[in-house]
């Protein structure tokens, strides 16, 4: 029997603690940089998976929604001196509401048609910001340079961003996990599996899609706040559609539809692609991409449901479950 708080949760906490202590025993800033990048990609992919994974509505416009969050928080910071910490809440609500409103007439579209609409919206936003004088047009916005300031989310050391990123990924993971286990989550998954059946049993697909869009795009915008304050420079190119594919990739590798999938995918492919880039591109430029592509093809060909998709149905999981349950039994049994 699974417990609410058992050995699995202890293990997860332990993992978080180990990762959180990483900067203490890894002094290489390059490693820390890769970690931060991984946290960011994992968060973005998790945010994407609420709509793309749980609800089954594949969006290729999420880079634009991320950019929207980055732009709103930066404009608020530059023009009105609003702290990014406050912006986190603002962009979650504003971007969530905007996207839910914009996409709500499109929920009648299914499969690739919906995906096409999200591409169109993404490109529209990108063009809007490319031509908008107030938002710096194509030049983008450089965030103000200066002394470290916690309130302005401005740090000169990597460690601060490391903990910020870790906090973000843990928070988003918990939110997505909670959705997954809630009534809302089951509703979303029902919509994903069969919209017509969902409708017939009293689950309004339209309503659930609106909620999923709100949460997914809102969380994506929160990632945007992190992006803007970490890289300290934003331009309309961050909204480009190829970036959206990058956010979807960890979910595909890790397993669309599972909550741990995007997280696992990001942890595997972000460091991998950076490692391949660093080691191989100086020997033969592009060879890193060949290897990366081969890995992707192999996964998609042999394991279309991703790593978690395979794991969830495997004997290995059953064995591990057994071990965990027995530990749980020993730990928490009341004599």
């Amino acid at each position: 029997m699974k417990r609410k708080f058992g050995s699995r949760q202890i293990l997860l906490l332990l993992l978080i603690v180990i990762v959180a202590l990483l900067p203490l025993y890894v002094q290489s800033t390059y490693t820390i940089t890769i970690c931060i990048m991984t946290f960011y990609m994992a968060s973005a992919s998790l945010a994407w998976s609420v709509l793309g994974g749980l609800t089954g509505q594949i969006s290729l416009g999420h880079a634009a929604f991320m950019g929207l969050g980055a732009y709103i928080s930066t404009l608020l910071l530059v023009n009105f001196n609003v702290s990014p910490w406050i912006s986190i809440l603002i962009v979650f609500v504003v971007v969530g509401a905007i996207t839910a409103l914009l996409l709500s007439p499109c929920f009648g579209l299914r499969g690739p048609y919906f995906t096409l609409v999200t591409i169109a919206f993404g490109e529209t936003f990108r063009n809007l910001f490319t031509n908008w004088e107030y938002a710096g047009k194509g030049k983008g916005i450089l965030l103000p340079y200066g002394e470290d300031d916690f309130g302005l989310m401005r740090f000169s050391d990597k460690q601060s961003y490391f903990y910020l990123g870790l906090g973000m990924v843990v928070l988003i993971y918990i939110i997505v996990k909670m959705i997954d286990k809630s009534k809302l989550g089951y509703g979303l998954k029902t919509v994903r599996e069969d919209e017509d059946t969902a409708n017939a049993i009293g689950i309004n697909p339209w309503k659930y899609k609106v909620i999923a869009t709100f949460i997914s795009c809102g969380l994506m915008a929160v990632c945007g706040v992190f992006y803007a304050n970490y890289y300290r420079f934003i331009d309309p190119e961050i909204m480009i559609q190829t970036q959206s594919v990058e956010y979807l990739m960890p979910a595909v590798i890790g397993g669309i539809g599972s909550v741990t999938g995007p997280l696992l995918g990001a942890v595997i492919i972000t460091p991998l692609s950076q490692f391949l880039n660093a080691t191989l591109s100086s020997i033969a430029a592009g060879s890193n991409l060949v290897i990366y592509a081969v890995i992707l093809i192999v996964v998609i060909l042999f394991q279309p449901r991703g790593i978690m998709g395979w794991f969830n149905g495997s004997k290995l999981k059953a064995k591990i479950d057994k071990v965990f349950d027995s530990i749980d039994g020993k730990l928490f049994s009341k004599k």
Partner: protein
Amino acid sequence: MKKRILAVVCACALTVSMLMGCGGKEESGGSGGDGGDTIKIGTLYPLTGDVASIGQNIMRGVEFAVDEINEKGGIDGKQIEIVQGDSAGDTKTGMAEAERLITQENVVAILGAYQSSVTEVVAQVTERYQVPLLTAISTADSLTESGYQYFFRLAPTNSMFLRDMIQSVVDFSGQNPEVKAGSIAVCADNTLLGQETAEWAKYFAEEQGIEYLGEVLYTKGAADLSSEVVQLKDLNPDVLVVDNYISDGILLTKTMAEQGYKPGIMIGKATAYIDPSYIPAVGNACNGIVTAAEFNPGTKGKEISDAFEKEYEVAMNGHSAEAYTAVWVLKTAIEEAGKADREAIKDALTNVKIEGSFPGGEEIILPYDTIEFSNMDMNGQEHTNTNGGATLTILQIQNGEYKTVWPLEIADAELQYPASYE
């Protein structure tokens, strides 16, 4: 039960403390690779991604210069070692690679980057680690407006491009009264660079008393430019200023030929119009088109560009010539610093002044004769560490070949006017 939880916690603490014990070996000292047998210089250009061919062309210039310097005995007896970084044209990767070059590879200076957005982010990284960054290629004006102390720009800025382009047109019409230069319009892609081109074209046109008719902007990588050409026809400027990436430039030239649109002067801002693949792709339709160029193989550095072409079977162009020169500038600075130390190199770069030729006697192959990085006021904006003396040459394609037409003193051909496009 409490005891068991306590045991678990203890075990965790033990594991963590063990892990902590085995780390902390990687980080190296702050000031860089002095003391080894080689001097490590990092490069950060897009070697993969959609602008990879440009990055690889840039790297040829870098390699060529490094080979030359190493053959001649290196820098104070030490060989230069290039550590390649690949920005992949992406800001996130660019930042990570810059940190790798600085903290893992321990380079003393970085050459890069290509796209202005990547350079903008990398400049912040190098500023924080106090590592000199020298860009040979990035032209966006805004880069040197932030007051960075460790960022140096060899390339002319966008405003310098437009300044020289408009000046050349004024000079043409001064020399030959038939050349009409009363109005100007811009056709460029809607990106940072295209927008800056339009902005500066307007600024310098108004300064010269030329009427600015407006700009026609399109989305980069356009599939069709017919309506843009129709708009240009409607504007009917005496001088058409264009700034396009290679595929768009080819498409624009072809569309103009189809629609029979022949502006008296069409002047390009390098990019597409000096790309090795441009002339073969459009054939005779390019005859008469004028373009700015950072480098002109006919006039200076002929020996070097010939040797370059022999080695790589590609002609040297603005990008490779600038990348080549940047290495020599850095070499000179390192020699003047006397040691491969980041701070000393930065100070040397701030003070370096190269006139005519480098200390070893090698000439500057770019169109200008002085290289120095100074803080200057340009069109009302404060710029730091910019090579203010940089100028450009203007070429015209005549019978499928580039001829120098400006500055008038070094021109090897007269401007063909009006452009024939056939």
